[in-house]
């Protein structure tokens, strides 16, 4: 049984959703930690949920990235632990320099909240083992700063090392398939060791039949299985 932790910051608002999704999948509620805690017992998987930590002050995720608990999260990742960061969690981890690049203001200057179609890439990465190469997933996004950006050298490295996990897919002919202007349509990336996954879409919002789909659950199952 994987030991799973969900970290909450002031302004996190998707922690309950991810906790519910994890409990539905594993049968056990994950451990919860508050940002001020400076010790965390060993975990197999650490999750940073979506939300608006610290009111998005300064830059999204910037203040949360310097919270006491983050030393433990970074150490867990450096040890080779599994990490899943969703939306604001992704912003926090780029601010903490654990994942490369940054999430900028959406190209259209609007908060975007809708389903998007994702395509899975580099499924040999540990966290994606439960998914097939090219597999399409329909999962919602909900963000104002999801426009992934990295300099050309970083993008080349991400491509060469197979670190691009999900792109927004235009397969269903939607002209606005990329909801935020993300460079190379990038929706999610993994760390070099394939164990840290950061993505803008919210898998926990497509994890119960009542959500109108279970694609998010597939993704969460993949990450949990990898960490188990």
């Amino acid at each position, binding site marked *: 049984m994987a030991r799973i932790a969900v970290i909450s910051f002031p302004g996190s608002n998707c922690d309950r959703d991810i906790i519910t999704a994890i409990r539905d999948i594993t049968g056990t509620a994950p451990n919860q930690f508050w940002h001020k805690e400076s010790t965390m017992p060993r975990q197999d998987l650490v999750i940073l949920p979506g939300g608006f930590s610290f009111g998005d002050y300064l830059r999204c995720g910037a203040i949360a990235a*310097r919270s006491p608990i983050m030393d433990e999260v970074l150490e867990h990742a450096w040890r080779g632990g599994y990490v899943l960061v969703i939306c604001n969690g992704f912003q926090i981890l*780029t601010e903490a320099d654990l994942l490369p690049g940054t999430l900028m*203001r959406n190209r259209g*200057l609007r908060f975007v909240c809708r389903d998007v179609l994702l395509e899975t890439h580099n499924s040999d990465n540990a966290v994606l083992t439960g998914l097939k190469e090219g597999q399409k997933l329909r999962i919602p996004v909900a963000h104002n700063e999801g426009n992934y*950006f990295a300099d050309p050298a970083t993008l080349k490295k991400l491509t060469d090392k197979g670190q691009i996990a999900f792109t927004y897919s235009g397969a269903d002919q939607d002209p606005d398939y990329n909801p935020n202007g993300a460079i190379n349509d990038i929706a999610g990336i993994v760390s070099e060791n394939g164990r840290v996954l950061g993505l803008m879409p919210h898998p926990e919002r497509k994890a119960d039949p009542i959500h109108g789909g279970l694609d998010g659950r597939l993704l969460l199952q993949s990450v949990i299985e990898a960490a188990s």
Partner: protein
Amino acid sequence: MVNITITIGLKDGVLDPEGRAIESSLNNLGYHEASEIKTGRLIRFTMNENDHARAHQKVSKMCETLLVNTVIEHYDITIEDLIEE
């Protein structure tokens, strides 16, 4: 004591959608002479330090660790002596 002003802006080549929106609004109002509009952020504070070089060093460190995202932003530090009345 010194007054610190940090001006933070997006690096060249980084899309500034807010600047673009402001520019199109100004153009719509007839100000066609306004172009290449960039937005940014200003952070001001006082610092208990008299040596400008030391102050600059400390503020640069603050910028690199928290205040600026150096992936997409550049910054400029201005230091002025605080005139006490």
